[in-house]
């Protein structure tokens, strides 16, 4: 099979265009449907690896500590993410529990872990196994990561119960706020470009 280097294909309407060199902050749009064709070809930011590692640490805090605490008539109860998943399973809503687990725990964690792995391998110029598989999994994971939606969910739950009881924000609430900011920065890097940082050295 022959690879074509000098063309760009629109992923929304399949129009084929001659490639132009873009300079910083420029973006090419499809003439037929108006979709973005490509941005200035950025190298993965130097900050991506430290951001992901910081994200993993915050992720652990967000999952280990209570998100909210409710106090009512001298009694109190704390909720952690995993604790509420256990209750969902106990109440015959395992499907919901699995979905919440994938979207708020599994997907963001795997995203940060795999991106660190791939960038580490490319920076050190070493051959590590499963780099290809890691990028494939990473790309499949992107639409299912929903930390920022979960963040909004915490706020809605907070206000909903605020009228009935005293709600105290827990450590994990702050961790989730930090995590959703970090994840947004990490996800803004298009994982497609990960395929090309490895191009110079075969693995």
């Amino acid at each position, binding site marked *: 099979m*022959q690879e074509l280097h000098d063309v760009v294909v629109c992923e929304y309407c399949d129009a084929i265009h001659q490639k132009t060199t873009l300079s910083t902050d420029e973006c090419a749009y499809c003439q037929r449907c108006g979709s973005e064709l490509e941005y200035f070809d950025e190298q993965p930011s130097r900050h991506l690896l430290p951001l992901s590692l910081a994200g993993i640490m915050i992720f652990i805090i967000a999952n280990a500590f209570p998100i909210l605490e409710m106090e009512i008539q001298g009694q109190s109860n704390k909720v952690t993410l995993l604790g509420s998943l256990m209750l969902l399973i106990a109440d015959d809503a395992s499907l919901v529990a699995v979905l919440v687990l994938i979207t708020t725990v599994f997907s963001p964690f795997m995203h940060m872990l795999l991106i660190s792995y791939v960038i580490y391998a490319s920076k050190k110029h070493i051959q590590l196994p499963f780099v290809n598989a890691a*990028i494939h999994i990473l*790309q499949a994971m992107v639409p299912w990561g929903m930390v920022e939606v979960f963040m909004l*969910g915490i706020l809605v739950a907070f206000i909903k119960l605020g009228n009935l009881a005293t709600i105290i924000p827990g450590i994990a609430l702050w961790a989730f706020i930090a995590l959703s900011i970090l994840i947004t920065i990490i996800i803004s890097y298009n994982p497609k470009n990960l395929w090309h940082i490895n191009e110079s050295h075969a693995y």
Partner: protein
Amino acid sequence: MKVMRTDHPQTHDVYNRRDSVTHVQTAKSLGVVTCHACGKIWRINERENKCAHCHADLHIRKPNSYQRCWAYLIAAWLMYIPANLLPIMVTSTLFDEEKSTILSGIIYFWVSGEWSLAIIVFIASFLVPLLKMLSLMFLLITSQYDCTWGLRQRTHLYKVLEFIGRWSMLDVFVVALLVGLVQIPGYASIVPGAGIIAFSAVVVLTMLASMSFDPRLAWDIAENK
């Protein structure tokens, strides 16, 4: 190809006119395929159908796009009925048991004066899934019945759908948190209802439906006309 500064995108509607659509060459007509995973562009040959760079399967169009999209969409409509009729959670206190549905949750916020929150939940849990399913049906029917009207707008609509679908998960997360938090023995406890299971299914199925839809099929029709 049009290059412009990202901060000043201009629009030009030359290709809204049907006669100009035919001037553009497509990758399909030239026997060129893009790898959906790594973005490499290949000239197709008969023997290989895997990307030489990342080993993903190569497809000129998403396989069985219409069939898969309709299947997910019909399943989503079926789940949409119990999702709205059955309670998403049941609150039991010492004295009574209160069942709340998606709409009753929104009404509760509205009545208790939390208007901004009522609007957010109304958009995320009611409007988004409904409009998403209707829009996907519209996109499927217009593509399947060879309609070339508003191709640019339809492509744009598809991009919006891809982006907003995830926000419907809001209510699922709220119920998960409330079930975990409101567990005060002898005072109040919340258990999830069957409605939230159906609602999660709606969100997942509509996401799968929009992932299996291929906007390029609509442009193919315009080209062949």
